[in-house]
């Protein structure tokens, strides 16, 4: 359609966090990692980059990479014990595959630093969970300890000790359970292989009424105003709390959005795109039951509201 849209500055440019899948994305990550570490252009490559078990997560905003993380399979023979923490003693007590998040780099505004770090780690853990990893080690920067403790990481050393970094351990199952607890529509999180994170800032517009979109969202925290055009005015009809699936009708049916969604505060979301979501539906149709559960709940809630209104 040759429609000339006037792209307003309010149209959202969220930080999108996904697993790197293409060579170009991997090259971008290597360059970003080098730039973050040394401050000069170049690429940092090591032997772990070429292993199939290595996961690279990238964060980009407005087409520019703003962060990356790497998660590798933990094998004590690959890691030195003199300079940094020796995880080998802890690893002997654990049963199951162990991953290690060994590199995180970010270049973003100060206000977004912590949240970007947090979601890079979360994406890494989710991707490791898909590969069957049970535990994750991370030699975490001290300033991020609180964030990581809230994610169910446990410290392997005394938190009061000095040192810029703290060794931490995460049991993946505990993290996933605590993550799902916050979602009313938790069934949608079963599609872990296709979701990614989008971090919207306050005042960013997720969707615009009337446009066609192909992404659905679930806010992990923050809140979203639902706004509709009523003659000459914009009216807020509700505020959606975290954990509720939004935008799913447009994603499934390709119909125009029925309302606009505006973030009232910084809102990290789990996002699903139609293409990948439908690929799963076509290849594993039995999983559509999860979506039916959500839609059925919506329908019964609507019916209850209509019944209450009729009583009044």
């Amino acid at each position, binding site marked *: 359609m040759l429609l000339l849209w006037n792209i307003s500055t309010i149209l959202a440019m969220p930080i999108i966090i996904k697993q790197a899948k293409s060579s170009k994305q991997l090259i971008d990550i290597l360059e970003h990692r080098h730039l973050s570490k040394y401050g000069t252009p170049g690429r940092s490559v090591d032997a*772990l980059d070429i292993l199939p078990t290595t996961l690279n997560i990238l964060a980009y905003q407005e087409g520019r990479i703003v962060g990356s993380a790497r998660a590798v399979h933990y094998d004590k023979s690959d890691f030195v014990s003199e300079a940094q923490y020796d995880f080998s003693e802890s690893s002997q007590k654990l049963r199951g595959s162990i991953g290690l998040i060994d590199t995180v780099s970010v270049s973003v505004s100060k206000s977004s630093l912590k949240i970007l770090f947090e979601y890079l780690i979360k994406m890494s853990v989710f991707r490791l969970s898909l590969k069957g990893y049970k535990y994750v080690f991370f030699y975490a920067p001290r300033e991020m300890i609180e964030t990581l403790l809230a994610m169910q990481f446990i410290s392997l050393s005394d938190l009061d000790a000095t040192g810029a970094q703290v060794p931490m351990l995460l049991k993946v199952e505990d993290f996933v359970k605590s993550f799902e607890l916050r979602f009313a529509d938790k069934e949608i999180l079963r599609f872990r292989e296709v979701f990614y994170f989008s971090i919207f800032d306050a005042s960013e517009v997720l969707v615009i009424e009337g446009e066609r979109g192909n992404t659905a969202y679930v806010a992990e925290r923050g809140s979203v105003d639902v*706004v509709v055009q009523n003659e000459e005015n914009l009216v807020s009809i509700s505020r959606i709390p975290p954990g509720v699936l939004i935008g799913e009708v447009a994603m499934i049916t390709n119909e125009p959005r029925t309302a606009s969604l505006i973030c009232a505060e910084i809102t990290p979301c789990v996002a699903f795109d139609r293409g990948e979501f439908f690929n799963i539906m076509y290849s594993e149709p039995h999983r559509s039951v999860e979506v039916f559960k959500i839609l059925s709940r919506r329908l019964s809630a609507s019916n209850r509201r209509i019944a209450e209104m009729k009583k009044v």
Partner: protein
Amino acid sequence: MESEVRVLLALSDRNLSQSIIDKFHHKYPSCPLIFDITEDGQRALNEVRFFKPQVAVIDRNFPGLAGEELAQGILSLYSECNIVLAVSKDQKTDVGFAQLEVPILSWDRALLEITRGLPIDFQIQYSLFERNQLFLKRLEAYALKYASQNKGDGEIVTRAWNFQQKNGETEIIPESNQSGHSEILARSPLAGSQTDLNSKALNIQPSFNATRFEFAVIGIVGILVGLSWFHFDLEGAFGWTLRLSLLATFVFCCLGFFALRWAVREQRT
């Protein structure tokens, strides 16, 4: 969704047609409408076969062919067309045509009806565009009330956290800064297998753009060799010379192909 919308204007007055087009473009400048003007009913019917208009605005008092006949003819050729029958003000009538179920309109409403006659997809997008400018401004004003929260000073902070590995790290410096490249590679414990590491890590394949061409040439020569040896009845010195020449060509092509691949690989190393 359609990428363009086709409108047939079958009006007795060409100036009126042009005036409608001008007004429409002025009001909806980005609307992708293609107009076709005709003042001849029979020609209009002929054009419908190729033009396939989604909307047809037809003069009820069309010269030569009555507007209703033209409308029926268009619908029989292209049933998806939305018909708008129009009359001048002094001939306005409230009587519709039951067979066609289309309204009779005055000219001054033709512009509006063209829009209403558009396909539903286009209507939604177009109505959005119509209010888009004002709507986005309102949306922006609504959103901005949240904008003052949590906004930093915009300063970009770059941080990197690493966990040291046994195998060490290799830097790849861009060409503009190659002076220390070989020195860095020499220091790297993986220098002996650097090419493989780079290739795998960066997914670089040895560039050999002529591969398909070479295969095609080898394939063609191979077919000719096969034909000359087993199918063609080539006798005498000429026949054998041809066979041997083709065989030699085939062998040299194969050798050349592999030599070129080896040379490219060496160059990249």
